[in-house]
């Protein structure tokens, strides 16, 4: 365990620059692919690697690539999704800021595999200082002959541009991102047709997360079969985890998939344990959209087996007792955290970010925010808890894009595992008047507390 790929050179001085990155073996995959492989052979290696989309959904990248319409005469596009906005997730930003060439190299070989001659990196507008970093990297790659016309004499042409978003979580959804890149509001499109057939400007398009694209050069260098040996089962390779919340060492860590969650949480190599010597209360292991798990169910699944950092292990137990690896946004809460207040901030987030196209999401997220606000501030009623469950159910599955589900799951899971705490807010309104109520006196429930 503990193999490093994406961040193996993070501590090499000057790794941001082309020369140093190249000296460390960078751009080898571009030479290998363009000089010795066909585009289809590159797709085949990525399929063999078992790489799953690192943006959150975990869909196999190679399979996504194989859907692109190659019969069409239209130009094809690759868009890199750098709209990282899921609360708890900040890994793509880290990668782009500190090893920009890893993304550029990945973009070149991925565009080659898909036959794209123009590719875009759609970056969330707030990362304004990263723009010049990436643009400089693109210029350096161009000067070295890795971008532009007839790359390395292979006859393959590629132009790569960075495009700025302007502050909308929904633009991380691939069809909303395409709309946004066309200069419109970020309203997700109905599917089918899927972007692989009708995407940007009506042309075949693939949208991939930054981390997925940055993994491709490693897959080509070592071969898909070798990559598939890293990790565990169908969770192949390494994954960047963004750790935040009540831990000693928040930050971005690269793990080999399959690392025990307890080791990730407590080892000094990673999170360094829960801060201030407090007890662990709950963890949201994959970004704000995935179900929250109480400490006991996080460390061990319902059958009592230790959980691992993998797509399968974190999902073990389904929504009844499991969660998801998602985007790897690992949010830790100690015993002083109020589940209701945290959930209220998430509901406010989804209400703010709903594009407003589908009524269940536009209206439902607003009602969830309102009801959670009144429970948290001591004005709730007992029937509000079931009202929340009901609203969440009516949003889930009834919207064009998954933002509705993403808004509903945290509510449903928080009530499933922490219903007592919601009831406490309603029964003792005077005790929750102070926003820091559980810092003053942590909520005690034998069920949800274990030693960290």
């Amino acid at each position: 365990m503990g193999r490093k790929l994406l961040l193996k050179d993070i501590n090499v001085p000057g790794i941001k620059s082309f020369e140093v990155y190249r000296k460390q073996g960078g751009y080898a995959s571009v030479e290998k692919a363009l000089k010795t492989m066909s585009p289809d052979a590159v797709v085949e290696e990525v399929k063999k690697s078992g790489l799953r989309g690192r943006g959150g959904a975990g869909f196999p990248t190679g399979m996504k690539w194989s859907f692109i319409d190659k019969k069409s005469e239209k130009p094809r596009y690759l868009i890199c999704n750098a709209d990282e906005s899921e609360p708890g997730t900040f890994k793509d930003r880290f990668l782009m800021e500190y090893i920009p060439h890893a993304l550029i190299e990945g973009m070149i070989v991925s565009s080659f595999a898909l036959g794209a001659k123009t590719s875009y990196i759609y970056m969330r507008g707030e990362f304004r200082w990263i723009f010049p970093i990436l643009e400089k990297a693109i210029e350096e790659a161009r000067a070295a002959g890795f971008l532009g016309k007839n790359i390395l004499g292979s006859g393959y042409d590629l132009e790569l541009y960075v495009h700025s978003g302007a502050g909308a979580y929904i633009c991380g959804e691939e069809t909303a991102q395409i709309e946004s890149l066309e200069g419109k509001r970020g309203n997700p499109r109905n599917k089918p047709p899927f972007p692989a057939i009708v995407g940007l400007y009506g042309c075949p398009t693939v949208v991939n997360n930054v981390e997925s694209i940055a993994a491709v050069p490693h897959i080509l260098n070592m071969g898909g079969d070798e990559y598939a040996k890293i990790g565990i089962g169908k969770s192949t390779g390494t994954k960047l985890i963004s750790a935040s919340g009540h831990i000693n060492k928040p930050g971005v860590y690269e793990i080999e998939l399959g690392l025990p969650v307890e080791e990730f949480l407590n080892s000094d190599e990673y999170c360094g344990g829960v801060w201030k010597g407090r007890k662990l209360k709950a963890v949201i292991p994959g970004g704000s959209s995935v179900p929250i798990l109480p400490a006991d169910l996080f460390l061990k699944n319902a059958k009592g087996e230790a959980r691992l950092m993998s797509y399968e292990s974190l999902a073990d137990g389904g929504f009844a007792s499991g969660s998801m690896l998602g985007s790897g946004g690992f949010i830790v809460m100690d015993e002083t955290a109020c589940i209701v207040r945290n959930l209220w901030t998430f509901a406010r987030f989804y209400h703010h970010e709903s594009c407003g196209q589908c009524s269940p999401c536009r209206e439902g997220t607003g009602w969830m925010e309102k009801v959670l606000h009144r429970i948290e501030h001591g004005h709730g009623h007992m029937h509000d808890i079931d009202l929340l469950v009901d609203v969440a159910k009516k949003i889930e599955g009834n919207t064009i894009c998954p933002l509705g589900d993403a808004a509903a799951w945290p509510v449903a899971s928080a009530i499933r595992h922490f219903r007592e705490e919601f009831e406490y807010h309603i029964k003792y309104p005077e005790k929750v008047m102070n926003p820091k109520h559980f810092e003053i006196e942590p909520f005690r429930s034998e069920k949800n507390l274990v030693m960290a």
Partner: protein
Amino acid sequence: MSLVQKIIKRYPEGRHKSALLPILHVAQAEFGGWLSPETMDYVASILNIKPIEVYEVASFYSMYNLQPVGKCVLEVCQTGPCWLRGSDDIIQYISNKLGIQPGETSADGMFTLKVVECLASCGSAPMMQVGNNFIENLSVEKMDDVLKKLRETHNVPSPDYGSPYPVNKA
């Protein structure tokens, strides 16, 4: 070639509307940190699109300010991971110190306080964005210093509002 023309060239022939979001960033940075109806109409004329196409986009994205702002815009993140590390205290402190609520501008026109949703800085929470920069690992104790420094750097006739694209400040 002007910056705007360079940006338009990044998109295929006839797809110049794709340059709308980038050009709005440039316009906002050049015209005092916000988009007035006149500014938006001007952008529409540059791209040869209808003004409504600009308004509907500008009102959708949270980075575009549709009201005038102070010389320095403080965008404090308030979502879960920042809240867990004390963002409520930071917002409260700024609000009390400057005598403004979120969304308001201080009487001297220096600061605008905005509360925003997750800025992908959860590992260095609490934090806020000012122009091109993230100011991270904030604490109430540090805030006086932070505000004092910002007052120095932004109290100029043409303060830098930040833009992903290089805007030449006169």
